[in-house]
């Protein structure tokens, strides 16, 4: 690296988790980037990943031109009677292009992060009261983390929310943190309550009963203490990560938490924060919802978008041979390989991804490094702009997808 050509970039947004921290300092020499301030393990690895110059597109194992790869991809979609377009990482611009393509070829659209749908099912069944990062940072005096250490998926969460150091200036005392059914990460001073994951729902049912003055026959003392502590909160927040609730019918656990929060708000203020946004899952949800009216797991039929959160789950469609072609996109993490399949498949992977077994592989740049873009933050409210940091000749996924759309006639 020639130090003379090093460029220092400040206020860089990091697209590699749902916190979308936008305060990173990154140096670049035109090829390689390095996070030099306010990085985390994730961002350092991801920004620092080498960019393979001139990485070719691959069709049937052979290097081909971009146009040839797009032509083959378009042919696959053209001859498919039921394609699946699956995101394992895409920003808003890519999702817009993906949805136009889905509309054109009658595809099902889903995301690999299955946790998101656990939250959506609760939203659609009973709703919730939620909050956002700046509210937590400035006003929360109690943060209850349920079933997640938070930092494995969202490394700087506590720092960004004014806990565990790193916060600038504010004199406000840090909120009390309690971990329920999870181990606190290093550096976070927190009380813990041991509960098995499959008992979380039961715990919140008990807490809810206490809120509503319906005292169960036997309540464990630590739960009773927790309930009392919660009642003293001026602004409490319960945090969960649906991705960490990896057990059957986890949506019922999330619902138990959300219904408890609603009942608390009859007399005090308390809010939930569903953690998410990794690999652009919330961006995918937002974009498909405003464009089609339905969340992910929607099939674009001749009669219009058809939503079914169970029938159109990507995992199920692939396992039951209910689709006959797969297009997979992962712009952020080259380790996010597509699901194994013998179907004709098209993969748009972050440049550097080892071409997986697939029919067509197109290496693409990363929004926030190779092109500008947008991602939605964990709180579902803030869309963070991603900047183009460097010009390395990477292909742009939206352009590639739009070219495929342009090559297809309307499927009906």
């Amino acid at each position, binding site marked *: 690296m020639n130090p003379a050509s090093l460029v220092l970039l400040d*206020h860089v*947004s990091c697209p590699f988790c749902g916190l979308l921290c*936008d*305060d990173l300092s990154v140096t670049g020499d035109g090829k390689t980037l390095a996070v030099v301030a306010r990085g985390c393990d994730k961002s350092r690895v991801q920004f620092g990943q080498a960019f393979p110059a001139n990485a070719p597109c691959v069709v049937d194992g052979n290097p081909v031109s971009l146009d040839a790869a797009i032509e083959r991809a378009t042919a696959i979609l053209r001859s498919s009677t039921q394609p699946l377009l699956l995101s394992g990482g895409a920003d*808003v611009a890519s999702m*817009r292009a993906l949805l*136009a393509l889905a*509309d*054109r070829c009658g595809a099902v659209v889903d995301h690999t992060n299955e946790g998101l749908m656990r939250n*959506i099912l609760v*939203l*659609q069944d*009973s*709703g*919730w*009261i*939620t*909050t*956002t*990062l*700046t*509210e937590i*940072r*400035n*006003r929360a005096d109690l943060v209850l983390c349920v079933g997640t250490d938070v930092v494995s998926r969202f490394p700087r969460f506590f720092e960004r929310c004014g806990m565990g150091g790193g916060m*600038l*200036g*504010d004199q406000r005392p840090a909120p009390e943190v309690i971990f329920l059914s999870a181990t606190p990460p290093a550096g976070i001073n927190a009380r813990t309550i041991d509960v098995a994951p499959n008992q979380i729902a039961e715990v919140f049912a008990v807490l809810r009963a206490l809120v509503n003055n319906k005292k169960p026959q036997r309540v464990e003392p630590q739960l009773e203490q927790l309930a009392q502590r919660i009642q003293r909160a*001026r602004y409490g927040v319960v945090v969960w990560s649906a991705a960490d609730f990896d057990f059957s019918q986890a949506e019922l656990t999330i619902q138990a938490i959300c219904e408890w929060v609603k009942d608390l*708000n009859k007399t*005090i*203020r308390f*809010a939930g924060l569903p953690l998410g946004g990794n690999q652009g899952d919330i961006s995918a*949800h*937002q*974009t498909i*919802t*405003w*464009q*089609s*009216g*339905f*969340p992910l797991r929607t099939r*674009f*039929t001749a*009669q*219009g*978008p058809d*939503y079914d959160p169970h029938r159109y789950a990507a995992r199920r469609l692939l396992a039951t041979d209910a689709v006959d072609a797969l297009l997979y996109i992962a712009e952020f993490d080259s380790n996010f390989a597509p699901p194994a399949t013998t179907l004709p498949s098209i993969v748009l992977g972050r440049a550097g991804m080892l071409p997986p077994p697939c029919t067509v592989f197109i290496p693409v740049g990363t929004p926030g490094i190779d092109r500008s873009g*947008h991602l*939605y933050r964990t709180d*579902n*409210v*803030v*869309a*963070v*702009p991603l900047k183009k940091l460097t010009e390395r000749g990477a292909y742009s996924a939206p352009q590639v997808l739009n070219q495929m759309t342009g090559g297809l*006639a*309307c499927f*009906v």
Partner: protein
Amino acid sequence: MLRLKGGKIVDPANGIDGEVRDLYIDGGRLVAPSLAHKIHEDIDISGALVMAGAIDLHTHIGGGKVNIARAMLPEDHRGTQRGATPLLRSGSGRATPSTLTTGYRYAEMGYTACFEPAMLPANARQAHMEMGDTPIVDKGAYALLGNDDFLLRLMQEKAEQQVINDYVAWTLRASQALGIKVVNPGGISAFKFNTRKLDVDEASPHYGITPRAILTTLTRALHALKVPHPLHVHASNLGIPGNIETTLATIDAAEGLPIHLAHIQFHSYAKEGDRKFSSGAARIAEAINGHRNVSADVGQILFGQTVTASGDSMAQHRNSVHARPGKWVVMDIECDAGCGVVPFKYRDQNFVNALQWAIGLEIFLMVDDPWRIFLTTDHPNGAPFTSYPHLMRLLMDKSFRDDQLSRIHPDAAAASCLGSLQRQYSLYEIATMTRAAPARILGLTDRGHLAPGAAADITVYQVQNDAEAMFSAPEYVFKDGVLVARRGKTVGVTRGITHTVKPDFDPAIEKRLRSYFERYHTLSLDNFAISDDEMIECGSRALLTHPCARVA
């Protein structure tokens, strides 16, 4: 050049009422006839009515809460889906249609511009992205202030009005807005501190600021900045019986400066009678008639299933007990604002709902000046925007109205003066309240009228006795001179522009904001603000920045 031949022009901005004239369109604009321009196409519209494209100045079409409503209510969308065609994208939705469908439906009804009235600065990108995916119509938005920590701190510190003006101007620019709206001034913030109701002269718990002070400060700011659209106000105490006193106090707080009261129907309730709920429409209409600085949109309710999506988290939490179906969302957002989404079914046999329906119509019919009262349903809160043609018929056709009145809860009908109101809106008045007046109050000089130089946003109606049928499916709709809809079907897809204002401010405010953001926020100031280039990335075709100069 395209010529529309022989139509009857209804163009209140230019005082034209039914005169037969030809219109000439070139380069997306209306032009004066000239020999220099060859007529390439003639469309004979003899006998048809011609109005400018309609403008909806208060419709929740984009932004976080609308998308929460969409995601929460797949049942609202089932049965309404349309598949993609070579021309159109697919979509769905009744109460909160998908963005693409929203653009098509508005155009099919002859609307060519829509304004999102509740854009949270923290969520402005989403609003602009959704509007960017709303085809054909022009868009614009009002940014929310008045519950944001920064303004409340400034007021708490007794900052000079000039500093607040700078902050308001900065917000308009940073969020790419056309105006400023305040929702339940101070109340959304107070709700975060566990206050459940805040009257106009009640100090908020944390900042000690009254809603009245917020209203006065913001109306002064917009006046000083010469922003064409006055402060757009969703008043305190929405939906509460007796809130008419709050609404009158809100008018008072403007101190004679221009103020726009949004969805006034929801703020016109008295508490007389056995049920302690009665119409305050007469007093509200009298207040509007007597205060020339006041304008209002009605927020008419119409019976059926809808969903209420509002920035007013305090009111929405209070109303969540009425959620139907029984699910709802409330959010506290970024020390900036809030939101609440509560599905709602208005029933004609429910006394309260029936009286709400009557109160809205009473206000329409008792406010004299169609330049200061606007046709809205507060989409989707009172009813979906697709019910506008039905509402127009209610206003224009007394016998139709009386027939509907006879079907509602009899006690509500008896409690309302609606049956005694003889007024029927004329086409000229409808054109005023849906075209000329909204363009004027938003400062859109080249929209809402049909004089040469105006954008060729034109709606042509085949005259019918049934106003609902007539307004549902115009014969032709042109957007910027392009034929986009024919007999209620989209036949051309264009992209509208985004209307904004960009008042100047003293850069000192940015310095102050920068340190505030670094200390308290979770996004940097530079990423909070949206540049013109980013607006194009968000999906806007182009920006039209209107001058900040008050039109007489």
